[in-house]
């Protein structure tokens, strides 16, 4: 409980505020609260039990993608991947369970199996700095690539072909199949989960948006970590593998690069790892430009998809769908607009607002670069909530395809559960706009309140902090208005 002591001094703008903003948000340690969960995550079966169902579905998707009907909405590869999985991932898993998907993802499964050569056991031994025996060349990932730029570009490249990817079962299966092969190759050449950390296109946006999540894995006491000589969380031991994501728990303070595999919970000799429940959008630190640009790419794509996929303009759809229409000149125009708006236009606009923010604050010590990088966090909650608002129609309008495709996953005329003939039936589509308005407002709330936290970290005085917020809040409001226009206007 905090005691408030009122000062008789008049408020001074020069008063330093820094410490007060470092107040710790409340946390609930789920592993302490639920011992059965603690037992479960410490079990060697934990991750495989998570992966197993997704692996089964994944195989169904691959088979249906390669051999099933080419009609997307009648094939489980499209319906399960781009309607069900996507919605669950963006609207539920990421906001509430961080990167738990990375723990259950079937893509790196075979690569990890190739490195460990065992399903459940921990192989003791020595591989470089690791105290686990690992198969493969175990090379280090080049230093200059230790960022998410590759993921940014590969994700944008993949999304350029999204009109094809999300409608053709064969293409979906090809892409997923290729990612499995890449995952194996990278696992055989490089250490641990290099593929997930630096290559996987999905991983990039998971890393960014997991900052908002209500779940985190953290050390219970960093002092305990400092005292710990073995550093088993990163080197591994007989109980668990060294962190596949290269994280030392003593310095772990952001969700971005933690795949929630729980190996650290198993390997920590001091039982010092917690699985915490925390408030939404607790982390507010964007540390590098690759992360900031990921935010711009995601925001740009949400806007672009709202126009292309949820919009009414047939010509843009034809351009995006060049594989069928043959409008390759249009496709080049569409790609050019997509890439330039995501990589250049949006960041340039935000730079303008950052410049204004610094100017209005009146602070001469903080650089525009710092303002830009720190405030770029606002597009994280704003982008995530916009993506959820965008994804709602996918499940509410096209969710009924799930019911029919369960009985006929290949589109071959089967009727396994008697639901194959279920007619397409959107669920309350005319009311979606109200949910979308609420979601956008929620995004704006978190963008503005977290911007306030950042402003107080960035500037010395209250006056500077509040002033600097004006342009950033305006930017967030404009983004909100843009999505409102797409969805409701």
């Amino acid at each position, binding site marked *: 409980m905090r005691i*408030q002591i*009122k000062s008789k001094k008049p408020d001074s703008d020069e008063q330093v*505020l820094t410490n007060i903003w470092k107040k710790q948000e409340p946390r609930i340690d789920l592993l302490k609260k639920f011992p059965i969960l603690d037992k479960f995550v410490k079990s060697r079966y934990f991750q495989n039990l998570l992966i197993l169902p997704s692996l089964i579905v994944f195989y169904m998707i691959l088979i249906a993608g390669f051999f099933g009907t080419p009609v997307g909405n009648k094939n489980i590869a499209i319906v399960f991947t781009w309607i069900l999985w996507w919605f669950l991932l963006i609207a539920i898993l990421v906001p509430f369970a961080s990167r738990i998907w990375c723990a259950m993802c079937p893509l790196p499964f075979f690569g990890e199996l190739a490195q460990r050569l065992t399903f459940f056991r921990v192989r003791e031994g020595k591989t470089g700095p690791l105290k686990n025996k690992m198969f493969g060349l175990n090379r280090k990932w080049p230093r200059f690539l230790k960022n998410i730029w590759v993921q940014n570009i590969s994700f944008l490249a993949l999304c350029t072909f999204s009109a094809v990817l999300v409608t053709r079962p064969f293409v979906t299966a090809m892409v997923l199949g290729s990612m499995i092969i890449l995952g194996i190759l990278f696992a055989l050449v490089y250490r641990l989960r290099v593929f997930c950390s630096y290559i996987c296109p999905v991983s990039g946006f998971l890393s960014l948006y997991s900052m908002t999540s209500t779940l985190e894995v953290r050390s219970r006491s960093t002092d305990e970590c400092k005292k710990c000589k073995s550093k088993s969380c990163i080197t591994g031991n007989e109980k668990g593998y060294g962190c596949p994501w290269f994280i030392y728990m003593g310095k772990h303070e952001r969700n971005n690069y933690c795949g929630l595999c729980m190996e650290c919970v198993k390997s920590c000799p001091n039982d010092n790892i917690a699985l915490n429940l925390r408030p939404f959008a607790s982390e507010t630190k964007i540390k590098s430009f690759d992360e900031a640009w990921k935010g711009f790419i995601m925001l740009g794509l949400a806007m672009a998809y709202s126009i292309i996929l949820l919009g*009414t303009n047939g010509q843009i759809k034809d351009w995006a769908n060049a594989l069928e229409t043959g409008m390759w000149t249009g496709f080049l125009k569409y790609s050019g607009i997509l890439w330039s708006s995501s990589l250049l236009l949006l960041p340039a606009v935000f730079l303008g607002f950052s410049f204004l923010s610094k100017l209005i604050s009146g602070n001469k010590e903080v650089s525009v670069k710092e303002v830009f990088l720190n405030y770029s966090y606002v597009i994280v909650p704003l982008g995530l909530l916009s993506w959820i608002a965008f994804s709602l129609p996918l499940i509410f309008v096209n969710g009924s395809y799930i019911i029919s495709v369960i009985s006929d996953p290949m589109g071959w005329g089967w009727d396994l559960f008697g639901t194959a003939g279920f007619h397409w039936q959107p669920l309350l*589509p*005319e009311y979606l706009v*109200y949910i979308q308005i609420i979601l956008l407002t929620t995004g704006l*709330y978190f963008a503005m309140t977290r911007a306030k936290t950042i402003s107080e970290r960035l500037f010395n005085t209250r006056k500077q902090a509040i002033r600097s917020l004006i342009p950033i809040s305006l930017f967030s409001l404009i983004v909100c208005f843009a999505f409102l226009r797409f969805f409701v206007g």
Partner: protein
Amino acid sequence: MFFKRFIIKKFWIVVAATIVGALAGGLAGSGTEAPASKNITIKARQYAYDPPKIIANKGDTLLLELASLDVVHGFYLEGYDVDAEIHPGINTFKIRKPSEGYNWETADVITVILTRRGKFRYRCSHTCGTMHPFMQGELIVKPNTPYHAGLGGIAGFAIGLFMMMGISSKELKVVTAGK
């Protein structure tokens, strides 16, 4: 506890500003015009409708004729209980009310009396090709109150939130000063 936080944190400012904004926005965009009758032919092709957007006023009566230029398409109008199946080269089409099940009838025109305001999408309800799930058009029934109220409400929310943050920031500073 919640109520106390609500008052202390000045969150009521946000709620009040949002309501005022939403009302102001809703009222600002509430101009009405005399109801009229409009004949519109909607041509469906892979994967768009022509016209892609229909703008009308509340109270108008739309007489919709449907035609397909290539394959079999659907026409599902949100909020107005209309679903149709359009075959290429045929002037008539099958129509049903989704709320009444699958009782298809044949018609050559759909009469829609616009009783609800806002944006309603018409979507293809018959699998017509790869991009079928994304084939849609928009019927905007003016005044588009949800949009205007949404704009006003969000603007009010932002202003209220900004005011609240300014005030709470000052309060926190008092704590620092005491230390």
